[in-house]
């Protein structure tokens, strides 16, 4: 594989855009990324579009119908919540393989106020045979609630530990103008907000919303030509895993094993260890997800997530700690427009590594290595490691 670099990035503030179409949202992010890269759509050789809820509606082509119908190859990808990051990875592979030199990846989504309960996968035509609520719950809040409960069972972790994650992420979001929510919350607010699926209260669940993000990737040769001396981050690892067979995975999706395997591969490929990571954007669709991913991504040892949250002295996952996690506000605050999420966290990591003004208020000092992790239930996990 050839080296691949992130030349330009763009995203729109996550939120609600009921008066816009999905391709319009994607087009806006694409134009920002192209400008950031100093390129026009005419320079793009290959385009990957990630969108989940309109997966059959040729969103990528419709974006080009907005910004420039140059006739280039377009691929529309879908991979649950890992849709956007899979789009980035497809673009990465297209350049890494030597087939193209400049590729654009866009992730966009419009969820309106649809809940994040997830799709009904029973595939039955008579609703009398729907199992949801009759044979337990297979929806996202149950899956991730139980992930927190499993941690409780194994290690005695409490709801309070998990609630602190939400306090931290909301605090970070106050410094991110791209975040859907920018309000601070106290531990009391989080613990006393409405219970959704124990142990996750409302503030421990990510919101739904609309958004778009884009990244322009280039080969090393093109970087030399186009970057004009600007240093740009290299994609040092781009890993995708699916759920391997584990004991309970088919009954209750196992979100940990595929993340652990992806992390191991990513660290090996990038030739670094978890201690070298300056900042991590991880998939905190629920506070309990962030809890288990601290360990899955080796940011702390097994069973140490609660300690990792509690610990002061520069070790905690706060901005200013030595392993800052989700300084963007994470999915919990920044929002989670499904297809956009995996591209947006590439933007966030890039901004910190390049001292981009868009990360100004929350800039992680001395950021040299950034990690972006996404998991889509069903399951798909991506990890990207970017280095300067």
């Amino acid at each position, binding site marked *: 594989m050839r080296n691949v670099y992130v030349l330009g990035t763009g995203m729109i503030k996550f939120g609600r855009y009921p008066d816009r179409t999905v391709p319009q949202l994607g087009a806006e992010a694409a134009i920002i990324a192209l400008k950031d890269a100093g390129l026009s759509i005419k320079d793009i050789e290959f385009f990957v579009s990630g969108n989940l809820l309109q997966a059959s509606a040729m969103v990528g082509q419709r974006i080009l119908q907005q910004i420039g119908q140059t006739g280039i190859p377009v691929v529309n990808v879908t991979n649950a919540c890992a849709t956007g990051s899979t789009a980035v990875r497809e673009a990465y592979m297209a350049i890494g393989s030597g087939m193209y030199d400049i590729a654009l990846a866009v992730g966009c989504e419009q969820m309106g106020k649809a809940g994040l309960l997830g799709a009904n996968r029973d595939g039955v035509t008579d609703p009398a045979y729907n199992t949801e*609520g009759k*044979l*337990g719950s*297979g929806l996202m809040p149950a899956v991730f609630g139980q992930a927190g409960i499993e941690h409780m069972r194994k290690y005695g972790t409490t709801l309070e530990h998990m609630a602190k994650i939400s306090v931290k992420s909301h605090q970070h979001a106050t410094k991110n103008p791209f975040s859907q929510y920018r309000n601070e919350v106290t531990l009391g607010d989080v613990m006393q907000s409405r219970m*959704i699926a*124990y142990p996750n209260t409302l503030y421990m669940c990510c919101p739904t919303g609309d958004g778009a993000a884009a990244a322009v990737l280039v080969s090393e040769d093109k970087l030399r030509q186009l970057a004009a001396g600007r240093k740009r981050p290299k994609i040092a690892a781009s890993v995708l895993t699916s759920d391997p067979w584990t004991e309970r995975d088919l009954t209750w999706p196992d979100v940990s094993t595929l993340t652990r395997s992806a992390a191991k591969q990513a660290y090996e490929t990038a030739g670094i260890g978890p201690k070298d990571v300056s900042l991590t954007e991880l998939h905190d669709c629920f506070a309990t997800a962030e809890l288990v991913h601290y360990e899955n991504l080796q940011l702390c040892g097994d069973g140490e997530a609660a300690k990792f949250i509690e610990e002061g002295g520069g070790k905690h996952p706060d901005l200013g700690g030595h392993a800052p996690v989700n300084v963007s506000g994470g999915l919990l605050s920044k929002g989670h427009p499904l297809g956009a999420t995996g591209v947006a966290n590439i933007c966030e990591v890039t901004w910190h590594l390049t001292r981009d003004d868009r990360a100004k208020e929350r800039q992680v000092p001395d950021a040299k290595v950034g990690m972006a992790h996404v998991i889509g239930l069903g399951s798909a996990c991506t990890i990207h490691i970017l280095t300067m």
Partner: protein
Amino acid sequence: MAQEAQIVTDSGPRPIVPYLKLEPKPHLIGSKCACGAVYLDPKRVACSKCGASGPFPTVDLSERGKVYVFSVIHQSFPGIKTPYVTAIVDLPEGVSVRTNLLDVDPEQAQKEPHKIFGMPVEMVTQVASKDREGHDVIAFSFRPTRN
């Protein structure tokens, strides 16, 4: 007339999922691969643990198991009554099932979650709804074992 007669002879209850058998008494069934993996799917095509092709022999599963994890669901689709306790129950045959947990107070479960872990439970069945053809649809749940 013939059609009517058929409806009459076929009006018995039906299981909500194919891995619930109602006769002779309600129980769960699985497909068992030689490698030991058990699937809640009587028509399992192949084994995703070892790759062996089916068909696999059907095994009857125990009606008793132990709670591995649970959650209390407070928000769901319209028509689903909340709060209720959802759980993953491990069966001795090496497969887990997703189920509602009955006779466990949701508030109490949230206050003392450790009391639910490992709890011995047993399967019970109930009429969950009526399908479009008028059959009772039977679902299963688990509750703390009664001796």
